[in-house]
């Protein structure tokens, strides 16, 4: 069973799996988590682990993993440390698990999960434990400059790891910016030049942009695309400058 022979569709009503048969045709396999919203469903190419991130609504966000795509194990979801706050007086609690990525081909078993209210979590033991990436959470722009858009709080919805260098990572945060680290998450810088956010007093503000899905070219990782409320933007130089392409 290879990763490429599986198609995972996370829906509001569960996870639907298709598999490629011997005739190279996609065939319906079966649903999982029937009736439960699945925000992320993917297979980590490094470990072959299947991942399903759920949003139960009543019961909170849950993380499930599977070694065979048939039986699932629920593991403890990322949790914010006691005392951390979204804003002053607003305790940080995990509202949504909205982004997932392997940390890179040379970091087997290391994964990243992006959440609302804006925290990035890292696991180095394939999900047995998670740690908040403190450097991004403590970015000086966060408490005053990040805010909710379609969700109540800021949220990380995109994680892109440079296939040439796993210490080089971009995360997309609504509403904040695309942030880049070149040193494995020690330092983070916003990459917003060229973007516009017509809903802000200063549309070219570095912080407060609302990137939606941010996608990186796997053959030329300096190229990324994002769509937001004010257009579709492309960068050809790793986020140094975004150009409006539609």
């Amino acid at each position, binding site marked *: 069973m290879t990763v490429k022979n599986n198609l995972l569709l996370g829906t509001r009503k569960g996870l639907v799996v298709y598999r490629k048969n011997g005739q190279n045709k996609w065939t319906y396999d079966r649903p999982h988590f029937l009736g439960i919203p699945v925000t992320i469903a993917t297979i980590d190419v490094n470990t072959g682990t299947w991942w399903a991130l759920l949003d*139960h*609504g*009543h*019961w*909170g966000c*849950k993380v499930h993993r599977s070694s065979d795509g048939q039986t699932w194990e*629920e593991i*403890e*979801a990322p*949790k*914010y440390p*006691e005392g951390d706050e979204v804003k002053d007086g607003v*305790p940080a*609690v*995990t509202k949504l698990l909205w982004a997932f990525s392997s940390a890179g081909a040379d970091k087997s078993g290391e994964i990243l999960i992006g959440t609302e209210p804006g925290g990035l979590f890292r696991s180095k033991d394939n999900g047995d434990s998670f740690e908040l990436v403190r450097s991004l959470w403590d970015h000086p722009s966060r408490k005053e400059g990040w805010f909710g858009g379609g969700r109540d709080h800021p949220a990380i919805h995109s994680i892109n790891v440079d296939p040439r260098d796993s210490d080089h990572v971009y995360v997309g945060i609504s509403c904040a910016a695309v942030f880049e680290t070149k040193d494995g998450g020690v330092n983070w810088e916003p990459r917003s030049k060229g973007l516009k956010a017509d809903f802000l007093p200063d549309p070219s503000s570095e912080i407060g942009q609302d990137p939606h899905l941010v996608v990186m070219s796997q053959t030329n990782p300096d190229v990324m695309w994002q769509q937001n409320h004010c257009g579709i933007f492309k960068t050809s130089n790793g986020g140094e400058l975004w150009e409006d392409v539609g």
Partner: protein
Amino acid sequence: MAIVKFTANLKRFYPDLKPTQVQGETVSDVLEEIEKMHKGIKDYIVDESGVLRKHVNIFIDNELIKDRKRLTDPTGDNDEIYIMQALSGG
């Protein structure tokens, strides 16, 4: 000892759930005891700060608990504690 009864929806995730007698002076104590019996169930009922999830309610007999943040409502012998989900939507 109080007896704890669960919404049927939780049985989907914890099939062995059944009305359970538990010792505890507060709702928080009771939840800790339930967690020892059913690992992880507390995360379904409260968030990581210990606050009762928004659409979950706990009743002691016929009374909704008052302290949703710290779950300090006292529990006594023969109390019936109901862990319920709120229904919403149309």
